[in-house]
Structures are given as structure tokens and as C-alpha cells.
């Protein structure tokens, strides 16, 4: 797999998502639960806005000095016995990892969930050199057995129901028990335990690397990343180059923002920071460690107006509030990164050509921007994408071009930008009837044929939130 997950035309993918009733309900209910969890944690803190400000400041400083911090990180990992490989492209990263696999003559690789390894298509590269790859995150394992694709970046098998999971386990692994989630999970535990013990190499992603001491941190609930970093003798961590913090103190802030925004937990069950190889006398952990730092298009975003998209900590909060994602589901985006952040970052990483509809997969209601724990102006960036697409391809019709002029104005000044969520509403008015959009221009049409698409709410999230704070029912 690579960042692009489907060759089907965008409209077809949207149709498929909209037609899949279970998926739509699952997404809606998951969104509800994620949102109330996040909201509860934010309310409990009281000063959530300060936390977001701090998160934004940390990310801004770090990305502005990314070369400095990556250098320090690599020095420190190396001092602790780890090898560091800087990979400009997905191919370079994959070749390096293939080389290790061959050198170790590794037959079995266990992985813990990692978006960046999906992005570079690592599993295919491993298969090429004859290694069996086992995904050990429960959701990823289910998808792997079923040869299916992730639809959400935190709970990748969100679109599957438990009967489907039981069926998959039965067909692929001879499972004979019920579809009770506990029984399914306990079966997975037994099966995967054997895989961990038999694995030659463990591969993880990286949530945040701590530059000052070379610690690579994983944020998980299931404990699979701990197994992957405890048992195999060779371990490889693959990190997107922007997943770095200056010191342990900033790790605290970003982990706290991530777990709260992603799953509404104060901390997840396991936050694990590993530094280099195991030390003398230790029985657990790898004797050989590799950190692969991946660019794969990210550096192109540096120094552009989209730089803040690299601040993303992959919490999925923007996905969980997005009315478009709710309607069409994760697969419709045709990218391993769905939702608002997917719509922003996919064209940046993989080019506009295959993904030019994505910036339109948004109602510009601004809910994503409001929830983002590091304050990425997501919908402003979507507007910029649209502008660029129209300018570059000059394909937009007259009306669209006119609209773009308006968007440009909103996007150019911060004060106007604050109004842009509200302004998006009148822009969609002509197509909405009784609060539901019956038919829309261009790509919007794809999802308005079968289902009524909810028009952006009359209130912006910000004003809704303000009213809510005042205790008014809305």
C-alpha cells in the first residue's frame, strides 16, 4: 500500500461509502463517542485553550528548527547504540529496511500500528524479500487477515462489525467461538502472542521522538508496541521526520494533547519511550536498533504556507467532527489519511493530480479547525488548496472562480478567516433545502445523489461552543 489506496474514481468511492449502511452508522456512533470523550477531557481541564496554545507554540518552534532537532536526535540515538537512516523517499526507506531483513535472514516480522509504514508501503516491500509480516494491533490484524484497508487513523477497522470479524477469524484462523468482542480479542491475544515470540524483527512507528536524549515514544492501549519492542532481538522504528519534540518536557504536552484529543483519555494505557539498544545485563529489548527517519514529500511542505500541516500529531479529532467523513466514511478519501487532515496533507504529499477532489470533501464548517489540539487552520488550508487547484488547472467554471475570489479574501487576513466558517454557509445556500443539500456542484454531487447531505449548521462550532459555555441549550 502507499498513501493512495484506491484507483476507483472519487465519485465511485463516495457512492460506495454512502451506500454502506453499517459503515455509516458505525462512523456516526464512533464520531459521537470520540467527540464526547474529547469534550469531557477538555472541559475537565478547564483551560484547554491554553493547552492548545502551548501545543501550537511547541510545534511551530520545532518545525522551524527541524534540521537542528533531527541532528541532535540522531546523535543521541547513535550514542545509545542505534543506527539512524535518513530516507528522502519511500523507496530509500524500504530498501534500507529490506537490507536489514535480508542481512538478518528474517522470516517473520511483527509490526505495531504505524501510519508512516502504511504510507511508504512497507508491507509490500517486506513481502518482496520473503518476510512474513504480522500486524499486531487488533484492528490492523483484522484488516490484514481480511486483506482490507484502514478507514480511520485511530481505529482502523471501524467499518467492520463483529459478525464480520468473527467470520474472518473463522475462515482465516479456524476460530470457533462467538462474536462477543471479549472472546474475539482473547483469541487474537493467544494467536498474536505466538507471533511475537516467533518474530525475528519488530517494526514500530513513532509518535514522538525526544531529541535531547534519543528516546522514541509510542502511545498505545493494547500493549502491542511494548511487545514489539520487548521480544525481538532486532527492532526498527520508522518515523515521519516531523514527529519530534525538543525535550521530555514537551513530550508531556504533546502526549497529553494527543491522548485527550484522540480518545478522550488522560493518558492511554501505555506510553513507552525506548532509547537505543538494550543495555548490558538486560534481557528485554533489541540488541540491534534502527531508526528510519522518513521525508517522503514532507520537506516540500516546509517553508510554504502549508507548513503548519506538518504540526499534525495524528489524533484524528478533526476526522471525528467532520460531517463529510461522517457521511462518506474513510475509504472515500482514497488516501490512508482521511478526513480534513487527509484532505489537506494527501495532495501535498502525493500531488494534486490524483487527489484534486479532496479539498472539496469539506463543508468548510470549520469544526476541524476548532478541535485541532495544535491549532492547524485546516479549513483555511482547504480553501487555499481549492484556490490553487482552480488557478493551476484553470478548470473551474465561472461560478467556482468567482467563489474562489471570495475564498481568497477570507484566507488572506486572520480576522476575515475567523468569519470564513460563517461565510461558507451562504456560499452553499443555493443548494440547500430544508437544511439538507439535495444536489451540489461538482464533487459534492457524488454524495448527494443517494443521501441527503446535511447543510453546514447554522451556527459555527465556535458560536455553538460559546453558547454552550453560557449554559444555553442549542
Amino acid at each position, binding site marked *: 500500500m502507499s498513501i493512495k489506496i484506491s484507483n476507483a474514481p472519487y465519485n465511485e468511492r463516495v457512492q460506495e461509502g454512502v451506500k454502506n449502511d453499517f459503515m455509516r452508522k458505525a462512523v456516526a456512533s464512533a464520531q459521537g463517542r470520540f467527540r464526547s470523550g474529547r469534550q469531557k477531557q477538555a472541559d475537565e481541564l478547564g483551560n484547554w485553550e491554553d493547552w492548545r496554545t502551548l501545543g501550537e507554540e511547541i510545534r511551530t518552534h520545532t518545525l522551524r528548527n527541524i534540521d537542528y532537532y533531527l541532528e541532535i536526535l540522531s546523535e543521541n540515538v547513535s550514542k545509545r547504540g542505534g543506527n539512524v537512516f535518513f530516507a528522502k523517499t519511500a523507496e530509500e526507506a524500504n530498501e534500507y529496511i529490506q537490507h536489514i531483513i535480508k542481512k538478518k535472514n528474517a522470516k517473520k516480522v511483527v509490526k505495531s500500528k504505524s501510519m508512516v509504514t502504511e504510507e511508504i508501503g512497507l508491507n509490500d516491500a517486506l513481502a518482496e524479500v520473503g518476510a512474513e509480516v504480522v500486524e499486531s494491533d487488533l484492528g490492523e490484524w483484522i484488516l490484514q487477515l481480511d486483506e482490507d484497508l484502514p478507514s480511520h487513523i485511530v481505529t482502523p477497522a471501524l467499518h467492520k462489525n463483529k459478525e464480520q470479524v468473527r467470520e474472518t477469524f473463522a475462515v482465516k484462523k479456524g476460530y470457533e467461538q462467538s462474536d462477543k*468482542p471479549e472472546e474475539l480479542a482473547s483469541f487474537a491475544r493467544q494467536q498474536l502472542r505466538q507471533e511475537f515470540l516467533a518474530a525475528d524483527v519488530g517494526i514500530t512507528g513513532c509518535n514522538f521522538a525526544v531529541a535531547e536524549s534519543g528516546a522514541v515514544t509510542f502511545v498505545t492501549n*493494547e500493549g502491542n508496541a511494548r511487545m514489539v519492542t520487548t521480544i525481538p532481538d532486532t527492532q526498527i522504528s520508522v518515523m515521519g521526520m516531523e514527529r519530534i519534540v525538543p525535550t521530555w518536557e514537551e513530550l508531556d504536552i504533546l502526549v497529553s494533547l494527543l491522548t485527550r484529543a484522540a480518545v478522550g483519555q488522560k493518558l492511554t494505557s501505555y506510553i513507552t519511550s525506548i532509547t537505543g539498544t538494550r543495555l548490558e545485563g*538486560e534481557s528485554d529489548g533489541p540488541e540491534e536498533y534502527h531508526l528510519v527517519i522518513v521525508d517522503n514529500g514532507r520537506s516540500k511542505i516546509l517553508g510554504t504556507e502549508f507548513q503548519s500541516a506538518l504540526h499534525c500529531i495524528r489524533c484524528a479529532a478533526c476526522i471525528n467532527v467532520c460531517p463529510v467523513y461522517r457521511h462518506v466514511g474513510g475509504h472515500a478519501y482514497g488516501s490512508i489519511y482521511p478526513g480534513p487532515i487527509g484532505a489537506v496533507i494527501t495532495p501535498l504529499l502525493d500531488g494534486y493530480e490524483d487527489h484534486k477532489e479532496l479539498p472539496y470533501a469539506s463543508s468548510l464548517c470549520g469544526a476541524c479547525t476548532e478541535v485541532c489540539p495544535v491549532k492547524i487552520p485546516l479549513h483555511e488550508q482547504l480553501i487555499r488548496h481549492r484556490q490553487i487547484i482552480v488557478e493551476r488547472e484553470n478548470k473551474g467554471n465561472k461560478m467556482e472562480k468567482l467563489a474562489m475570489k471570495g475564498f481568497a479574501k477570507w484566507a488572506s487576513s486572520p480576522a476575515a478567516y475567523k468569519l470564513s466558517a460563517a461565510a461558507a454557509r451562504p456560499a452553499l445556500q443555493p443548494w440547500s433545502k430544508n437544511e439538507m443539500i439535495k444536489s451540489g456542484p461538482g464533487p459534492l454531487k457524488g454524495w448527494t445523489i443517494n443521501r441527503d447531505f446535511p447543510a453546514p449548521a447554522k451556527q459555527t462550532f465556535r458560536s455553538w461552543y460559546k453558547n454552550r459555555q453560557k449554559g444555553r441549550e442549542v
Partner: protein
Amino acid sequence: MAIQNRDSFLDSLAANLGRPRRTQGIERPKWSVSPQFEVLNQASKDELIDVLKKQCEVIHTDFKRTDRTDLVKVLRETIEGYNGKVIVASSDSRNEEYGLDNFYKSAAEDFDVHLWDETMWKENQVFAERADVGITFSDITLAESGTVTLFNNKYNGRSISLMPRTYIAIIPKHTIVPRMTQATRQLHEAHISGNAVSSCVSFVTGPSNSADIEMNLIVGVHGPVEVTYIVVDD
């Protein structure tokens, strides 16, 4: 160890940022806000213990509180409650201080006890894998989130809190702090004063769990299925 392709990689980042490469002299700015230090900053140790106790309900963890005299009794009850026959524990210097080494010796009649032993190499893991109960001390305990922080080393293997079916954390009262902020500050300061960080720092918050099947919470996936915290008054 080897660092490959670094210069060309970092040079091109600097070029994209439109400035020469930065290799030194970068200081963290003073952040404009610091909400993390406000959390529970007025709370006494006893109040923090109350916070921890409440948080244990949220994280599906049993909470017990005792003193040094009764620790062994409470520990034994907890092990029996888990129907524990095979036990793996860290060979921590605190075992002696808290009277656990005698317990582990005398308990050998009732249980199969293994204390982590660096000379036994991978056999430690094999033992942890079939153990019913893993037991370690907490190095820093975070009240807000209900988290025990473990500095894993050759006496305290990563597997002890991970592979057995159940896990018991012994929490000396003085290890309790408001939140992760105090733990990461300690790690930062240790680093500044030249102490190398553990090869693995584990922040463990209750049993392992997953919401991957229809968003239902399943407690107990790859790590322990049940967890007890025993707070010991100093």
C-alpha cells in the same frame, strides 16, 4: 553507530526553510502559557492519593492502600485473588526495604516465584510469559491519569509488567506526583545533569485494552487483563 544520509537530508530541509542549516545555538523559547503546572498544584500527598483512587475506577484498576506492616498480607491476598500460582517480580533494592524479599522466599512453598535475574538472560522472558502475576514497584506515580512510571533496567525487565496475565504495582506514597509533567521534568533534569535515561521508560495506566471491535471497550488485549495498585504509606 552509523548515521546515514544525514547531511544531504538536513541540508535540504534548511534550504526549503530558506536559511542556512542550524547546527547549534537553538534554545527552547519561553512558552507563553504553562497550564501543565497548574494541575493539582495545591494538592497534598493524601489528596493526590484520593485523586489516584478515583482515577483507578476509570481505568479498570483495583486500588488498595496499606502500610509497610500489612503490605505482605495485602500482596498475598491480591495474588490469591488473581488465582496466581506463578509469579515474576523485579529484583528491586526496595524488595528488602519493604520486606518483600522474605515474602518471596517464604512464599516459595505456595507459589512458583521468579525474581528477575540478569544472569538468566532470556529465561526471564520465558518465565514472564507463563506467569500469572507480575509485580514491580512504581518509580513515579501520576495521580491525575492513574499511571505508574517504570524505569526498566536489568533488575526490572520490561516483560514483568507486560506479559503475565495480571499485574500488581506497589506504589510507595512518596512516589506520587500530580501528573506526567513532574515525571518528564525529572527525566529532563536527570538528562541535563548527565544521567543516561533508562533504555525503556514505561508509563503504565491500568490494564491493556482496545476499542477496535465496534468501538466496544475490551479490557485485556496483549498486556495484563487485570491490574491492582497497592499504595504503601511511608
